């Protein structure tokens, strides 16, 4: 009854009673509905009064929707105690963008999350949506977010398709679920799943990849190979060897790079066979002189193994470039075990051959060979090498290198030292970095270096920086930047204390 009246009223109200006159029966019906003494003469009054009454009736008479009761699982419990109120407030400010620090607040947020997870605490529930939004935008935060967020974050992520990257890791704790995510999930969820599986069970990860490899897009194939870099082992060789014949150049390049990182691979053996005829050892033991001839043009097999014409550093000739690539892909054991040279001997006898040094540097980085890396770093600090060293070697090496390197090279060196580990530097390296920057004459390098210090140095170095700040003149261009670095370190100091 009312809905018919309502439709009539809406139709009339839209165009007016002049254009859409209400019939006599309509007026009577509306009048009866309203049950008020309405003058038959005025259509308008009838329509408006009826509209008021029917609208109120409709509003007051509504009923709630009643459906099947939803069967929604509540979040799993998380027994970890919540982070302290002070710590939680810092995280909220970091996520809101209220804290401006050099290098961005994300680095500090990552440190917060890492310390939180390490101490067996959990972030408060109110930051979980913001954490998931941040992780959706920046991939590098996803690992720390998932670790700190725990089962409640994963449960929440399951409700929003944008957050699938965080949901997959925990709903897929079971092997079968994991495989299901890999077969049917979207790109982000699949990659998160693969990264997690690769770190827990590298062999299972490669099996999973082999199953779907033929159907993957070229871009995904390259990204998958990038994931396999972690936990690389001989079980991966078959797939990588197949990758050398891939249609996509990026996939071929990545496969060759990974096989060259595996000293036991057939590719590494083939590279050794290419280098061996070029090597000439003169002189007696202990006084041996190493000479390596330049190679001829690579054959098709060598090109399949990743030797390229392009990509030579400036001023390097074609044949020298081929040699650098060959040495970079040859197992370092060839020089030490087969030729009987120590890394130090090899470096000494190749003093006039920078291309050999560069090749060994590439090989040490790829094969994560600490013995060679230490020797190479001591000889010439190469930022890329610091990342190949375990932190306890990388830090002293960086400290030593700080004394030798040019002013302009300091920031690169510091960021490599920061990349060697996710934990802050020890106090001695932190102090050495600040002292070196204070003596630095290159102001751009000083600013860049300070940005690294803000994120990676031991927070206890703060007072030293404040003394530096106090010594600057009021017009000094460095003042502003240095103040933000001090600010960042004081926040990091508080974070460390809250999770002490």
């Amino acid at each position: 009854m009312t809905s018919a009246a309502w439709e009539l009223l809406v139709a009339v109200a839209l165009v007016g009673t002049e254009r859409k006159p209400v019939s006599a029966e309509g007026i009577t019906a509306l009048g009866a509905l309203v049950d008020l003494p309405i003058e038959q003469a005025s259509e308008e009054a009838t329509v408006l009064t009826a509209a008021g009454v029917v609208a109120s009736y409709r509003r007051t008479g509504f009923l709630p929707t009643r459906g099947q009761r939803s069967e929604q699982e509540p979040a799993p419990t998380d027994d970890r105690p919540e982070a302290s109120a002070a710590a939680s407030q810092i995280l909220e400010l970091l996520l809101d963008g209220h804290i401006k620090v050099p290098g961005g607040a994300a680095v500090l947020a990552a440190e917060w999350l890492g310390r939180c997870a390490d101490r067996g605490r959990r972030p408060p529930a109110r930051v979980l949506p913001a954490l998931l939004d941040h992780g959706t935008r920046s991939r590098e935060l996803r690992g720390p977010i998932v670790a700190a967020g725990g089962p409640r974050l994963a449960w929440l992520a399951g409700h929003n398709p944008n957050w699938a990257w965080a949901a997959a890791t925990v709903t897929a704790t079971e092997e079968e679920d994991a495989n299901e995510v890999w077969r049917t999930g979207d790109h982000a969820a699949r990659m998160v799943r693969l990264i997690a599986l690769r770190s827990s069970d590298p062999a299972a990860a490669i099996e999973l990849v082999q199953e779907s490899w033929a159907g993957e897009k070229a871009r995904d194939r390259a990204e998958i190979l990038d994931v396999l870099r972690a936990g690389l082992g001989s079980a991966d060789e078959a797939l990588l060897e197949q990758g050398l014949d891939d249609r996509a150049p990026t996939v071929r390049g990545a496969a060759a790079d990974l096989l060259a990182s595996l000293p036991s691979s057939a590719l590494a053996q083939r590279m050794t066979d290419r280098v061996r005829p070029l090597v000439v050892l003169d002189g007696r033991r202990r006084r041996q002189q190493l000479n390596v001839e330049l190679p001829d043009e690579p054959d098709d097999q060598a090109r399949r193994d990743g030797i390229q014409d392009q990509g030579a550093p400036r001023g390097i000739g074609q044949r020298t470039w081929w040699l650098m690539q060959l040495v970079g892909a040859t197992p370092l054991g060839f020089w030490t075990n087969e030729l009987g040279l120590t890394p130090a001997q090899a470096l000494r006898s190749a003093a006039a051959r920078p291309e050999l040094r560069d090749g060994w540097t590439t090989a040490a980085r790829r094969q994560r060979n600490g013995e060679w890396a230490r020797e190479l770093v001591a000889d010439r600090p190469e930022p890329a090498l610091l990342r190949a060293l375990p932190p306890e070697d990388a830090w002293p090496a960086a400290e030593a290198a700080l004394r030798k390197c040019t002013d302009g090279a300091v920031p690169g060196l510091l960021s490599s030292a920061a990349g060697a580990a996710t934990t802050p530097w020890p106090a001695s390296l932190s102090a050495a970095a600040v002292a070196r920057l204070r003596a630095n004459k290159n102001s751009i390098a000083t600013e860049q270096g300070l940005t690294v210090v803000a994120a990676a140095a031991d927070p206890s170095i703060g007072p030293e920086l404040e003394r530096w700040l106090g010594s600057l003149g009021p017009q000094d261009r460095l003042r502003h930047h240095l103040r933000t670095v001090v600010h960042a370190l004081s926040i990091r100091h508080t974070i460390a204390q809250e999770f002490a």
Partner: protein
Amino acid sequence: PQALSIADTVDQLSTWLAANPWRDRLPVALADTVVVEAGGRWWLEDPAGDRLRLARSVEPWMMLALSDGQPGLVVGEWEDGEVVPMAITPLQDPVPL
């Protein structure tokens, strides 16, 4: 207001509106409700299975995060047949929804 079931809340709203139809926003306090998704919309649902629609302008994520999917008290405004939540239990430290 006292926390009510959804059915009682709707009765209460009708009484208020009948007394004063010009009100367009009214307070609600819904007992033991969970946030659920159905038919592409988010709803507040109580143990009887009654549902009130969450306003389109409201994102459910904070409510889900704070409640962990457990039933709780929701305080808010009723407006145009939908609920605009303002706080959920625990109320000691209210967070904007």
